[in-house]
């Protein structure tokens, strides 16, 4: 008969070991998985929505969905890329739900973001908050462009990790990232002429 697994063991165990334990019904192991990954999941969702309350709800849903789906996890990818894929999909679902619910077309949403961005750009340089403008610029990108910028430039994922999370080729990640950055540079063009170093 094997020894009981202690909290210390769980803290030192690899993700895959914890997942196996959860699959055998050990909820404590799941707590450790949440502990390890919740900050990154919350930051990912926050970069998309910039709304702490919404992020709180969505992040909880991500982990509950992960818990429910863990029984069918087959270790074909790493746990964290699998988890972030759930988070990305959750973000997309929420984005789509919001757009449909408000009967807004994407163009209208973008027009709103553009108008806000232009208004902010017209402010006195001392009043401009560069962080807000970057957030607005990100909002104006198409979803699939925004995702790669967030994952690469804000979350620090590698090309390979992004490819695994989004189920696309590494080459697609590179080209999509390049196009996203080009679009963001065009949106934030006037700001980049200033010295932001």
């Amino acid at each position, binding site marked *: 008969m094997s020894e009981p697994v202690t909290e210390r063991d769980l803290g030192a165990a690899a993700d895959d070991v914890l997942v196996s334990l959860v699959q055998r019904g050990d*909820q404590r192991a*799941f*707590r450790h998985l*949440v*502990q390890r990954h*919740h*900050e990154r999941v*919350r*930051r990912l969702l*926050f*970069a998309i929505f910039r709304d*702490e309350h919404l*992020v*709180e709800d969505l*992040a*909880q849903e991500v*982990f*509950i969905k992960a*818990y*429910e789906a863990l029984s069918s996890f087959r270790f074909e990818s790493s746990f964290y890329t699998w988890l972030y*894929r759930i988070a990305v*999909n959750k973000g*997309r*679902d929420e984005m*789509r739900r919001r*757009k*449909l619910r408000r009967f807004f*077309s*994407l*163009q209208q949403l973008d027009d709103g973001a553009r108008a806000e961005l232009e208004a902010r750009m017209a402010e006195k340089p001392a009043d401009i908050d*560069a*962080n807000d403008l*970057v*957030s607005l610029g990100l909002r104006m990108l*198409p*979803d*699939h462009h925004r995702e790669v*910028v967030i994952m*690469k*430039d*804000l979350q620090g994922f590698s090309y390979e990790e992004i490819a695994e999370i989004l*189920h*696309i080729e590494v080459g*697609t990640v*590179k*080209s999509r*990232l*390049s*196009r996203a*950055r*080009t679009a*963001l*540079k065009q949106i*934030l*063009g006037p*700001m*980049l*002429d200033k010295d*932001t*170093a």
Partner: protein
Amino acid sequence: MNLPLPPDDALYISRAIDGDLSPEERSQFDARVERDEAFRAEVEARRRLQRLIHRTPGLEADAGFIDRVMTQLPKHERERSDLLPFPRRYLPVAAVAVTAVAAVATFMVLESRIPLLRFWEEQAQSVLQVYEQTVSQGNFWPLLGDLDDDRTIQFAFTGTLSIDEEKGATLKVDDRAKDGYRIEVQRDGARPKRDVTVAEFMSAVKPSASQRQALDSVLHAAREELQTAVFVGANDEVAIKSDLRRLNRAVISGLAAVLEPEQRAKMSRFMTVRDAPYVLFGSDAQPSPSQEIVRMMRAPRERNEFVILRPDSLLISRYTIDPDQMRFQAEQYEKMAAELEVRRARMIRTWVDRPGLPEVPAIAPEAMARLNVRSRRDRLSIEVSDSMNGRIMFFNMTIAPRVWVEGGEPDVSAGESEMQVSGVGAGPTRVVVTPRTPIPQKPDSMKAKRRALPVVIE
């Protein structure tokens, strides 16, 4: 003035910023930065952008988050257990029993077919994966997002639509077969002998101002339907609405329903001269209100099902996709025009520019139509056989496929040309197709060897 950076340079700089260049590429990059002032300025601007993005503040840590998640778990466990038809404590016993029975049955029945079944299981999973991770998540692009009214009417009247002028690639819907239809994506596909334009059609039928408005409404509705009929996925999957062929006839009957009987006769001639593969019947019916026509065009979506094809397996399956989601994707066309160009070119390359593959039968999750895919050189062909026979009736008019008797045509032979139609109009309608008799409408305009068969409604 800042000119847009060539895409290759943009990718080059993007990779350089990420530290993805090889040593050789890096030294070439540094040398170019040194000598090319414009390039240097672009690199600097992009580095400033990176610094700005990196400075964006994140989210404060939330110490209570983990506890809140963990307290939710028992509640979800309970909710899930409530779905079981027996007490949860019997779940392990039930699972073991079911597994044992399934294992014994599977072993006995399928012992000699394990490799084949494993293959099907893997393929079914792969299609499901496409559906879950690509289609249902919105990672697909409308192939026909840039349609205009001319191309819409061209498709309705000829069943053929150019999807890439440069490569000569066409999408063709051919429903002359007795028990189904065929969708083809074809490189260097045969173009219709004459293009059909809205202006030509209007000139032929000479509508009044109010009729013109109604005809425009019908075309607008048709365009929307067509835009949500063919999609390309992130990894070159193709999703095609399974009842795409219904649309052509719905458009033709919708246009005809707006017109007076004498204008309809002109429309019929117009179709014949343009070699349209359909014949219009019921020309004496009175015009219908345009709102009613548009409503009817959109209403008979018996199935919002899509045939989904994956390039690596050439396996197809049918899944239902939320129409709102389809429409939402199509609405985004303006934003993804550039992406779509790339997808379209890749799709044609993936599906059409490759050596032929053997025919692969489809897995249909429900008992529905028989689906077959043939990928030959220059052509992807999807054959759909279903219970919906060759005739569709709208507004007391019937649009039927013109059935050709021609050497080499595999679709219909004299002995197979009887069709049974039911569920249209007031009651079942029996349709008899008599081979090799000249069609009563404009037979002279037909080629001698391509004689249409008359359709008699009993």
